[in-house]
């Protein structure tokens, strides 16, 4: 790894420690500086509130002249993040990257992305369609995913719990059942039909 990348990552880790921001965390995965683990807290006033989202951060050889490669390890229901792979659609991680941006500003931007989705530039077309056409189902799903995968506190939606139980009682994996139910806006019949057809 180039020395400028290594020294910058060391600097950034030190700065994040000193900044004392409780809602973002970055740590090394190993002794190598090219593989990091990040964590952000879901911003308040959103369905992701108080969820803990783990991120994997890969630092390219050419950092900071090229952006870090960031994806969600914790599953999340958001128009700009793939609900399956965790890939993120965010301009500053692509062509709008600037060398003065840091891992701290990237994580803060991701928090901002959770607060303000861009459904017109989606990463996950299914989620984006639901966000636009059925906002109520979107909020319900995003909240349930936050509780289910990101340990967000609060009582879970009884309708969601019940339908998920029914689907998994039929022998489908919970993750796959949840994905199917979410995709079909919690219409159990359609979700089951989809699950049996594939």
């Amino acid at each position: 790894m180039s020395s400028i990348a290594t020294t910058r990552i060391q600097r950034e880790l030190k700065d994040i420690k000193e900044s004392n921001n409780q809602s973002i965390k970055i740590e090394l995965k190993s002794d190598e500086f090219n593989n990091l683990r990040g964590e952000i807290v879901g911003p308040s006033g959103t369905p992701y509130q108080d969820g803990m989202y783990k991120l994997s951060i890969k630092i390219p050889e050419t950092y900071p002249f090229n952006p870090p490669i960031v994806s969600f390890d914790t599953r999340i229901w958001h128009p700009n993040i793939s609900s399956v792979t965790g890939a993120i659609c965010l301009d500053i991680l692509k062509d709008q990257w600037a060398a003065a941006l840091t891992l701290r500003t990237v994580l803060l931007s991701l928090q901002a992305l959770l607060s303000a989705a861009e459904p017109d530039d989606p990463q996950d077309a299914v989620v984006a369609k639901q966000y636009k056409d059925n906002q109520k189902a979107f909020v319900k799903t995003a909240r349930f995913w936050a509780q289910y995968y990101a340990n967000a506190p609060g009582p879970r939606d009884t309708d969601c719990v019940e339908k998920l139980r029914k689907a998994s009682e039929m022998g489908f994996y919970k993750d796959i059942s949840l994905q199917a139910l979410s995709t079909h806006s919690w219409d159990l019949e359609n979700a089951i039909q989809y699950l049996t057809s594939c």
Partner: protein
Amino acid sequence: MTDEPGTSNSSQPSSTQFECNICLDTAKDAVISYCGHLFCWPCLHQWLETRPNRQECPVCKAGIGKDKVVPLYGRGSSNNVDPREKLPPRPQAQRPAAENRNMGWNGLNLGDGFQMSFGIGAFPFGFFGSMFNVNDGRPRTPPPDTPQYQDEQVISKVFLFVAIFMMFWLFVS
């Protein structure tokens, strides 16, 4: 205020004001952009190389370039050599990138783009050929102040002189 033991501590954060916005270390061979952002010239140079098509300030995305930064000379800095001269000139300043952009070379351009070229052929046809070579997709003249431009100007003048001489010779004989 008198100097107290605490002052060195409180002045610690202010030292970050002189850190390069790219490597986050104290700026070496410092340059400052017109928008006021400080960089090491090697860092900024590499940034400009990485994005040849988007020359933007890494901090505020204002326009930036080799000719849009001011070198900073602190006291006792290395013989006041312009940091921009320490590195080899950026290749894109030399590269005839104009070749990609010549799709719209249109019309009989006898202004800046006038060039006399040398051709062999029967006199009237050759003459017309070189006179009316419009829209033949020749690369546009390179921008002034580059070595290619000066070379082409010299060659153009030589050919013009040869042409005048030939016409004169034909006329006399």
